[in-house]
Structures are given as structure tokens and as C-alpha cells.
């Protein structure tokens, strides 16, 4: 079996997939990739099923050694990587394309700034992490899944499954395949800055306690901008902005990824992949599934605004994007 070796782990690099479902009644949340869209696209580019286990990179990318060579793809915030071959030659490679990393080469993934917060690195064949409770992703809060239940460290050797796509005849040179995903298949709205004031607002649905907030808080939530704070992580994106006044809530209730809770501090928290399954703070809104990848990509300091959409619209947007994904997948059939 092939494997990749971690030379330098980057800031926080974990094995993720599309999450574990079915264990919520045991208190296990979904976890999985913070930017599921980029995760799926990266896998498709290397001929994997879209839910194969891949690396989720946070802000600073890792350096990885490939003793046997592999097809890889980088998506998400990073704009590229540098491949250093055995003869010491450096080749910059772009994100968003299938790349052949030659035998005995290393790959250094570029930084996520300024475009976002996370990148996905998929390897053809998928990372061979154990299937636990229906998922291969790392649950950092509880310390299981992925690679020994933790973020990668230097020296880790991660096994890779059998790829569906054959290696090239000449395994010694870097290859960049011209194939790439359309801009609709990135979390960012085409033609606008990723996280600035001119970026379109995050689309949300009303939360169960929305009506219990005072009018001023409801208005402020939809008119003011909120800034992502540095203590945000995989369990939630913490925001700072105008202080909202939460109603009192007596019992913990169900929460899902994207639920926007308002604790007594009045500063909202957008729950993300590693959220607990219940929460005791009023839920003012829930991010539409279509925009969850944008939450996963919002770095500290990013400015977010919210706009309300209805359930029908949320479903329509999702189906539209799934159609685009399907067409893209069909166009990649020759890569498998």
C-alpha cells in the first residue's frame, strides 16, 4: 500500500470526509470537512468518490513527502503548492487541477490567506483512515477518528488507498492536467471579494427563537456586519459586532451545523462541523446549507453579513449547485 509522509504538519491539518451520520443520539455530531464543497471537488479531480478521506488544511499548509508518487488536487483557499522533485528541482503548481507528484518528491501546500481559511488536499485512492461510526474524519473534541484522533504531526505516515487512475508512463516529472472546476463550484461568489463588505451576505433561514428576540436585535442581525474573531475553530465561528439581546431559554435544544446561537454576551456564534449536538442558547438563525462552505472559509477578521431566505429558495439553490456538480463529474469520467 502506498503512503504519504508528513514532513511538516502545517498549523492544523486533519483527515476529514463528509461527516458521520447516524450517531447523533449518542451525542456524536457530524464533523467532517468545514468546506464540504471544496472537499468534494478535490476528490472528484483525482478520480475519487466525493466523500473519500482527504486532508483539511488550516491557514498554513503542510509539507508532505510522496515516496511512491501520486495524483493529488488542492482546492479551497490555497492558490497553489510547490513540488520539489528528487533532483532538487522546484515546480510551482496551481490549485484546482489534477497534479502528478513524482516518485520521491515533496509537496509544500501554499497558504490559505488572503482568500480563506482552509484548503483540501485530496490524494488519488483516498486516505486510508479507519471507518468509525460511519466516518473517517478526525473528531478533535473527542479524540477519535482520522489519524489517531488528532491533527497530523511531523513523521506521521498516512496510508493511501488504491487509486482508480493509473500513474503516468513517465513518473519522474510533474504533470498539471488542464481540467478544472467551474467557479460556481467554489464557496466564493464569483466576481466579488471573498470576505469584504462587497461580498454578498451569508444566506440564512430564521431560527426557532428568532421571533423571541427584541425588534432591535432582529434588525441589527440583518443590517449590521459581524467580524469573525480569532477564537473561532472547527466547532464554531465566533462573531463580534453589535450586541444582540437574547431571550431566556430554559432547556437545551437540538442544534445543527450553521445554527447561529446568541449566548448571554450578545455576540453570535455560528456552529460548525464539530458542534455539540445540543445547545442551550437561543437560535436566531441557521445558515443555509449552500453557504456552509463560506462559514468554513471565513478567517479571523472576515466581515460577515446575513440575509434571510426561505426554505424553498434554500432547497432550490442546493439542487442547482448539485446539477452543476453532476455535470462537472460527468466531464471527469475519463480521469477515473
Amino acid at each position, binding site marked *: 500500500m502506498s503512503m504519504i509522509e508528513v514532513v511538516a504538519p502545517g498549523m492544523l491539518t486533519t483527515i476529514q470526509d463528509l461527516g458521520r451520520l447516524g450517531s*447523533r443520539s449518542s451525542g456524536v455530531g457530524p464533523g467532517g470537512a468545514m468546506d464540504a464543497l471544496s472537499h468534494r471537488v478535490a476528490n472528484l479531480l483525482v478520480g475519487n468518490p466525493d466523500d473519500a478521506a482527504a486532508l483539511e488544511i488550516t491557514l498554513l499548509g503542510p509539507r508532505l513527502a510522496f515516496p511512491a508518487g501520486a495524483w493529488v488536487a488542492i482546492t479551497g483557499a490555497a492558490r497553489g503548492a510547490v513540488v520539489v522533485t528528487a533532483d532538487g528541482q522546484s515546480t510551482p503548481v496551481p490549485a484546482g487541477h489534477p497534479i502528478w507528484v513524482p516518485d520521491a518528491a515533496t509537496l509544500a501546500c501554499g497558504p490559505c490567506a488572503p482568500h480563506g481559511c482552509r484548503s483540501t488536499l485530496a490524494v488519488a485512492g483516498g486516505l486510508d483512515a479507519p471507518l468509525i461510526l460511519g466516518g473517517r474524519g478526525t473528531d478533535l473534541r473527542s479524540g477519535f477518528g482520522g489519524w489517531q484522533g488528532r491533527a497530523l504531526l511531523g513523521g506521521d505516515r498516512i496510508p493511501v488507498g488504491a487509486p482508480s487512475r493509473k500513474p503516468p508512463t513517465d513518473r519522474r516529472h510533474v504533470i498539471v492536467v488542464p481540467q478544472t472546476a467551474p467557479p460556481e463550484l467554489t464557496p466564493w461568489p464569483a466576481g466579488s471579494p471573498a470576505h469584504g463588505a462587497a461580498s454578498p451576505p451569508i444566506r440564512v433561514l430564521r431560527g426557532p427563537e428568532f421571533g423571541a428576540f427584541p425588534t432591535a436585535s432582529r434588525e441589527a442581525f440583518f443590517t449590521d456586519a459581524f467580524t469573525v474573531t480569532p477564537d473561532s475553530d472547527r466547532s464554531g465561528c465566533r462573531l463580534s459586532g453589535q450586541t444582540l439581546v437574547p431571550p431566556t431559554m430554559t432547556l437545551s*435544544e437540538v442544534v445543527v451545523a450553521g445554527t447561529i446561537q446568541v449566548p448571554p454576551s450578545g455576540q453570535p456564534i455560528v456552529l460548525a462541523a464539530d458542534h455539540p449536538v445540543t445547545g442551550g442558547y437561543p437560535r436566531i438563525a441557521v445558515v443555509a446549507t449552500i453557504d456552509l462552505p463560506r462559514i468554513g472559509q471565513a478567517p479571523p477578521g472576515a466581515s460577515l453579513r446575513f440575509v434571510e431566505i426561505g426554505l424553498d429558495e*434554500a*432547497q432550490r439553490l442546493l439542487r442547482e449547485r448539485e446539477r452543476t456538480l453532476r455535470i462537472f463529474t460527468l466531464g471527469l469520467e475519463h480521469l477515473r
Partner: protein
Amino acid sequence: MAASLISIEPLGDACLVVRLGTGIDASTSRTVAAATASLAAAALPGVVDIAPTFNTVAVVFDPLRADASDLSGAIQARLGSLEGAVPTTGATGPIVEIPVAYGGDDGPDLAAVAAHARLDPEEIVRLHTTADHVVGMIGFAPGFPYLLGLPAALAIPRRATPRTRVPAGSVAIAERQTGIYPWTSPGGWHVIGRTPRAMFDADRDPPALLRAGDLVRFVPVAGPTSAGKGIR
């Protein structure tokens, strides 16, 4: 049905919340457990996860495979036939005995709880171990049970300042509930004892030792225990 279907409301575009009550009580818990089992057995198309809370059932679905309003209708139809299927007494699940070493280093807040209740620590232990505790829901962390049925004499507000580190296996109380910390974590409840039983094991199916609806009895054991062994 001891309690009835109050509403089915969306939580975002991929979850429906089936409300069966508004407060916390054993009768509502029984209804919730019965409804959870019924919905799980129904295997409704597009449903990917089902989990109970104190008084609701969360039905998580894939919005590409199920339409929210169609699913809501299917849930309503399914739960309509639940009438009369809910037991009116007792817990719905098995009885699980949890050994606990009370007081000392295992239960650093036992003395404070006793002082608050104006009872001897021995009486606190007697009341806690003779009561029937029903699992209201699993939440907060994987495997963490919210247990209903704490005797009124033991009711106590949460700690004014949460502890930064509560060891795994700690048995703690707050308000009218008992909780058991599966993992070492911060926590605001009063720790009265500790159990060596692993509340969560990712290699077990289901991974949580307890499920909503289970009946729990605490069994006093001499301390110090081997608490922590087998618990991450």
C-alpha cells in the same frame, strides 16, 4: 400518547424538529423515546439521522433526497399511529447500574452539596442511589447523559464559577439533573462522585453507554476507585 405532537418546525434546510412537549418530565421522555423509535423504524426516505432531546425529536435529512414539507407530512402520519403505544409508567429502555465512588477526590463537591441541602453527605449518597434516574437525552459531548429524577432535596444551582477541568467519569448534579462527564472537560455542575464505567467508546455500537429513555441506578462503591481506567 401521554403527550401529543405539538409541532414540526424546520431548523435550517436539513433538519425538522418534532416537538412533543415543552418542559422536562418523565412522561414526555417516554413519548419522545417512543416517537424516536417509531421514526427510526419507519426509515423515511432521505432521513440521515434521528435523535431525541428532552421534549423533541430531531430528524436530520438530506435536502437533495427529501423535501421538507413532504417529510413533515410523513412524520405526522407516522406519529399519528403512535397513540396508545407509549407506556404510561417506568422507563422505556433497560436498567443500567452505574457504580460510583462518592466524595473525597472522586466527588470534591459532595460536602458543598450536603451543606446546601442541610443534610449529611451519607444522606446525599443514600438519596442519590435510591432514586430512579431516567436518561432525558444525550448531548453536550459524545456520550454525556442528562439524567432526570434527581430528588428535590438535592436540587442545587450550577456552580457560580465552572471548573476548568472535570475528570472523565465524574458524576455531577445541577438543578434537578445528574450528568456524567465522558471526557475530561470544563464543567459547571457539582461533582459528587466518579464512575469507572466508560460512558463513550467509539468502537462500541452504539458508542454511548446510555440512550434516551434508559433507567439508571447509581450503586455506591468504596473509593478510591479505578476511575479513569479505560476512559479517555
